[in-house]
């Protein structure tokens, strides 16, 4: 079984018997797309909500808007049908707790809502999610089953 690794602001698409892993999601969001009829899975490690607010936007997978556009296209190129694609998302934590948390620290929340908005634009439904809270997550997405394993040092492993 091949395991594909996805780093910050990267993405991968894989087929049955394969999986995609991303380690240490903090306030980043792991967007997982799945076409269950073709058993095609895709994952993007999204770092920021909006490419239009950024001067440094060459890397499209860094952002929820351009990253999800590209991941949907990559799924379609791999043979997925857009109408069949469903999403699972994880991450978007607020790693640093502080009494005077500024907006910049709440970037996890902003990422999650930007991801949901962009998925809605493509008509992709979010079927399950494990987002928010204050801990990091390592996630692995399996193309055979479409199950997403979410691991954290504080809560152990859960499957969504």
């Amino acid at each position, binding site marked *: 079984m091949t395991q594909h690794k996805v780093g*910050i602001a990267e993405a991968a698409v894989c087929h049955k018997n394969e999986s995609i892993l991303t380690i240490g999601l903090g306030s*980043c969001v792991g967007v997982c797309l799945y076409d269950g009829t073709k058993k095609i899975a895709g994952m993007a490690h999204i770092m920021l909500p909006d490419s239009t*607010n*950024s001067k440094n936007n060459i890397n499209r997978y860094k952002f929820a808007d351009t990253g999800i556009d590209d991941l949907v296209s990559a799924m379609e190129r791999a043979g997925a049908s857009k109408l069949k694609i469903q999403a699972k998302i994880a991450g978007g934590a607020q*790693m*640093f707790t502080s009494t*005077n948390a500024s907006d910049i*620290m709440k970037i996890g929340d902003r990422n999650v809502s930007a991801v949901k908005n962009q998925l809605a634009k493509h008509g992709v439904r979010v079927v399950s999610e494990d987002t928010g809270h204050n801990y990091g997550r390592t996630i692995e997405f399996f193309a055979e089953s479409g199950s997403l394993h979410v691991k954290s040092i504080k809560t152990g492993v859960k499957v969504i």
Partner: protein
Amino acid sequence: MKFEDLNEIQLDALKEIGNVGAGNAATALSTLLNKRIDMTVPKIEILPFNEVVEIMGGADSLVAGGFLEVYGEAPMSILFAIPEKSVSLFMQILIGKEINSIEDFDEMSESVVKEVTNILSGAYLNSLGMFTNLVFEASVPALAYDMSGAIIGNVLQMYGEVSDYAFVIESVFLEADIEVKGHFFLLPEPDSLFKILERLGVS
């Protein structure tokens, strides 16, 4: 103005500030703990984000991190991160407590990391202020103990709208024969970096 565009002279100027800052920090820590703590800065470098996670031992290794924001004429963010294997030694040196698992990392340990982040930031910012004549004001530190990918990713992300590089000061603390390594990340906003270099006369 970006880190990756800095020339040798500019880098040397920043390194010198780091060295002076480390000296100040060692003095401050020794005074606080009433015992002699030495500090050296073996390495100061500019690193792309993915290498930053690597020097902390990989994305799934545990680190304790204190984070704060700096306001004033040249705003920036600061992260002080200690890898899991150093956290225990660090606590031994500072409060004589052993940390063997995440459960041992209690409120007291959190306060220690926060306080050290405070002291180090203060020392570096004083040094920076002395050389540049700029005024810096730091926020109260926030804390996290988790996977390094998650923590560093989070900090770099707040900053990732402007750059893909970080300024990293490796800091080694020495007390008698115990040696502990931590990493201090300085993340100035792009205009701030320009302002600092201008004041240093190397823009």
